[in-house]
């Protein structure tokens, strides 16, 4: 684990502002820069980075104010004088010659370009403040940048520093407030330190110092140094105030004043003391610590028995409230802290249910887990319900291990209870979960067992769901007949027992089975299933149906349809914490981007998917990555494809096996090793043939043709692959274009006449498909066509003024009126790079301003590219 070095993220604007102030100072007009923010926000880091950047342009003199009860008079200026190394200055006696000293100081600072730093001015002694007041009023005459840092949250209305801040002429002042780091920056630093970023932003509030301390400490506890900092400050509190603080520390978030009073009696004065000392801050709901870490530090110092006592008291106070529903998760928290088993079992499951109903499935899982920790002695019937709910919430949030543990524990309970209905339902549930984790054989076994157990009992929704489990397995293996048969049984039974959930799942599976044959067939069913699921609040089923809609559309390459469903599905699932479907939809989006020709976007999506924990999504992403590399001619296409093949083999499902085989066949062809294709596709082709699965057959036959295997396809096969396999390239091109697949369309063109091949070459070059372009170029040359380009045309040749593609992109955004910072954000590049591009654009177009550049570009017609 690496400890992050000074995290100087997200400080570019601030450094830029400082550079501006320095530039003015060097030109002879001194400035005052105020850098402020909360403790730990990184004032020193910014100042150090800035002085490093300044380099040789100006000398830097450092002074710092002491956090002592009696600070050294003129402490920082002693440091500065020492740094300047001037003997005259050193000889002056501050007590006798104060004004003389100040004048000499000013002269020294102006002798050459200087940055004079005074740190932590909130601790400044009175003499230093006087010196600063003197200097800020005269600094504009000398080439000096006076850089003062302070903690603004410690500088209240009565604070001595206020006087100085008010004394700085506004023309001379640059005020730089440092904001906390964004969530993204926190994640970046966590990644650097190889730590999990979950909850880190909430915990640290984006405070760089706290974050660095937490990352450096490792483990779960609060690092000693932050604790020390916080506790030292707390030492200054009176006894009653300290009690308020300690009580507040067991309450996460904010503690209401009424709650303080309820537990401690009349506590306002004591609470106010905490606020004045900056230990607690008021907010709309009550009082809170400035940082979660501060709360943790105080909490750790409270001995366990007192903690439990506080929890008990808070619990009583909250339980006495009328609107307990709003307080459920707090009740659960304090119940656990009070070790009150009954209270936990009252509150936690209710809190979980509440959370699940608003789509906060992570919290729901955690609450059920909490209840289970206290559930050893409860009746089996109740415990098994908790286990089931817990496993379901874990499943939705992609926590496979805990989900399976709870499922198996539930199975045990049902066997002990002799409850076949429950046993069957849980077996069915086990089958579904395992299916999602790619463990097909186990899933099949669980589904069979579920059916046999439930068929012993009268008809039930659970049996309908078990039939559906058999149908799901069959449809993913593209065993159409079996899938439809099982799905119909499920549907009939669903109507008999009047279960909406069973109906929704059966419709979904039936729709998928038909959809595997082409979207048209399945779409009506899937859309019915989706509407039913949404209108009945069956969120997870809705998520699943979005996935099926995407799969059906992808099968026949209806990219526009697929995009519609995948995007809608992603929005739906993200809002509701449905990770399990979200992961799969994201991987599907990656595939979509690949097919649309948006290859950079596909690469970024793949990286996102791999960061998650879902094996099937990762497998889909690996197929995309392998094809991406193969199509671009980039190194290592085989590693991801082999990984995908391994998972596909384990599932044994045609849906996966055919995809992987086709991808590997394409990779082999692009590497000009068609002899590999039979070996890569024999098994999958036979499997597809056996199932009568039209699309996979056509796709695989198309690739096998390149290996010289004459396609042996049924005559009624339609679709672009079939057309190509039969040599009808014109029809194939039309179909590919209608589907929105530029790459496949270009490959189909390559099978045509000279004109088509030239078109194909241009398109492949545009896409950056170097290997395929090479194949087509060679074909053209073999036909005797002359002047075939040897590679993609150089970027600089495209535009009249010699603008590169990137510069043209920037120009478009300039024309929209965006500032450089906005352009940088839009194009995901650094501000400096965009500045360079804009300079280059102005230069190449001979323009002095951005407006001139845009006008000139319009004149040249560059805008239309």
């Amino acid at each position, binding site marked *: 684990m690496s400890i992050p070095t000074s995290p100087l993220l997200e400080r570019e604007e601030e450094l830029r502002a400082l550079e501006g102030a320095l530039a003015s100072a060097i030109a002879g007009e001194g400035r005052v820069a105020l850098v402020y923010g909360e403790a730990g926000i990184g004032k020193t880091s910014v100042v150090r980075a800035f002085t490093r950047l300044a380099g040789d342009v100006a000398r830097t003199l450092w002074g710092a104010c002491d956090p002592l009860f009696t600070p050294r008079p003129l402490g920082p200026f002693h440091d500065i004088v020492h740094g300047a190394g001037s003997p005259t200055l050193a000889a002056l006696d501050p007590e006798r010659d104060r004004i003389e000293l100040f004048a000499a100081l000013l002269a020294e600072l102006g002798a050459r370009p200087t940055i004079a730093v005074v740190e932590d001015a909130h601790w400044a002694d009175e003499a230093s403040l006087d010196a600063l007041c003197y200097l800020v009023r005269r600094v504009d005459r000398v080439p000096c940048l006076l850089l003062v840092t302070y903690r603004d949250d410690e500088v209240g209305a009565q604070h001595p520093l206020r006087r100085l801040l008010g004394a700085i002429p506004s023309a001379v002042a640059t005020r730089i407030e440092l904001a906390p780091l964004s969530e993204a920056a926190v994640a970046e630093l966590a*990644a*650097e330190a190889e730590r999990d970023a979950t909850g880190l932003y909430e915990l640290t509030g984006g405070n760089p110092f706290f974050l660095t301390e937490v990352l450096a400490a490792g483990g779960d506890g609060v690092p000693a140094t932050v604790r020390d900092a916080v506790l030292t400050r707390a030492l200054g509190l009176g006894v009653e105030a300290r009690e308020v603080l300690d009580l507040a520390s067991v309450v996460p978030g904010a503690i209401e004043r009424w709650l303080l009073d309820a537990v401690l009696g009349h506590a306002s004065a004591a609470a106010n003391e905490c606020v004045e000392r900056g230990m607690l801050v008021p907010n709309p709901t009550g009082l809170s610590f400035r940082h979660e870490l501060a709360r943790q530090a105080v909490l750790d110092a409270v001995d366990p028995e007192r903690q439990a006592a506080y929890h008990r008291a808070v619990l009583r106070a909250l339980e006495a409230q009328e609107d307990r529903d709003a307080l459920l998760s707090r009740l659960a928290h304090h119940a656990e802290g009070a070790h009150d088993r009954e209270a936990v079992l009252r509150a936690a499951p209710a809190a979980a249910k509440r959370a699940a109903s608003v789509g906060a499935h992570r919290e729901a899982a955690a609450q059920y887990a909490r209840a289970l920790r206290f559930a050893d002695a409860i009746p089996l019937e109740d415990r098994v319900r908790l286990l089931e709910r817990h496993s379901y919430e874990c499943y939705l949030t992609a926590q496979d291990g805990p989900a399976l543990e709870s499922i198996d524990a539930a199975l045990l309970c049902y066997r002990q209870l002799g409850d076949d209905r429950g046993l069957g339902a849980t077996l069915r549930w086990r089958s579904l979960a395992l299916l999602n984790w790619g463990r097909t054989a186990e899933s099949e076994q669980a589904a069979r067992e579920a059916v046999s157990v439930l068929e012993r009992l009268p008809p039930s929704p659970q049996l309908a769901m078990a039939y559906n489990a058999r149908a799901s397995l069959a449809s993913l293996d593209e065993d159409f007949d079996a899938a439809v048969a099982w799905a119909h049984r499920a549907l009939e039974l669903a109507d008999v027992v009047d279960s909406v959930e069973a109906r929704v799942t059966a419709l979904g599976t039936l729709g998928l089975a038909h959809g595997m044959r082409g979207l048209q067939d399945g779409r009506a069913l899937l859309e019915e299933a989706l509407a039913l699921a949404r209108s009945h609040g069956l969120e997870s089923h809705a998520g699943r149906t979005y996935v099926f809609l995407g799969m059906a559309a992808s099968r026949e390459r209806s990219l526009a349809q697929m995009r519609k469903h995948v995007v809608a599905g992603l929005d739906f699932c993200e809002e509701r914490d449905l990770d399990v479907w979200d992961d799969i939809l994201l991987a599907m989006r990656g595939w979509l981007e690949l097919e649309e020709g948006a290859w*950079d976007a596909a*690469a*970024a999506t*793949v*990286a996102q998917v791999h960061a998650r924990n879902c094996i099937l999504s990762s497998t889909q992403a690996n197929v995309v*990555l392998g094809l*991406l*590399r193969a199509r*671009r*001619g*980039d*190194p*290592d296409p085989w590693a991801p494809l082999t990984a995908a093949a391994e998972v596909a083999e384990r599932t044994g499902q045609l849906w996966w096996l055919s995809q992987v085989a086709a991808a590997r066949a394409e990779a082999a062809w692009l590497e000009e090793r068609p002899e590999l294709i039979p070996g890569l596709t024999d098994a999958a082709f036979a499997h597809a043939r056996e199932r009568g699965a039209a699309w996979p057959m056509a796709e695989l036959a198309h690739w096998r043709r390149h290996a010289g295997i004459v396609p042996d396809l049924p005559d009624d096969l339609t679709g672009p692959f079939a057309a190509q396999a039969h040599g009808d390239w014109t029809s194939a091109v039309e179909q590919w274009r209608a589907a929105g697949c530029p790459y496949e369309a270009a490959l189909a063109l390559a099978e045509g006449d000279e004109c088509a091949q030239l078109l194909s070459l241009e398109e492949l070059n545009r896409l950056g498909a*170097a290997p395929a372009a090479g194949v087509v170029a060679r074909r053209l040359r073999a036909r005797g066509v002359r002047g075939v380009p040897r*590679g*993609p045309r*150089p*970027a*600089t*040749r495209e535009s009249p003024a*010699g603008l*590169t*593609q*990137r*510069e043209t992109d920037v120009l478009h955004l300039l024309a929209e009126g965006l500032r450089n910072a906005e352009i940088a954000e839009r*194009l*995901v*590049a*650094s501000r*400096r*790079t965009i500045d*360079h*591009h804009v*300079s*280059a654009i102005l230069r190449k177009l001979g323009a002095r301003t951005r407006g001139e550049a845009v006008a000139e570009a319009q004149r040249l017609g560059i805008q239309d590219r």
Partner: protein
Amino acid sequence: MDTYVIIRRNGWRTADDLAAAAERSTAEGSRMPDDIAWIRSYVLAERDGSLGTVCIYQASSPEAVRAHAAAAGLPVDEIVKVADTVVVRPDPVAAAASKVS
């Protein structure tokens, strides 16, 4: 990280353009230090008078190479993985930019 050769033919008209590109490459590289590290480059005197480069980078993946190139506005013609490095003689002294054009 693996080592890659990146070929950028006919990328720039003048030495100034190339120098600007080098600055951008450095700036963008510093934003993704765990994913990419620029090792060295040879500037190519293309037949039509423009400049190209052969660049050696270390990168976490070919995708990282492309992402860096896109952010810095650099063309990418080809990426090849380096299997091994064989140094026979030290490099000739780098020509000053002004000499090339």
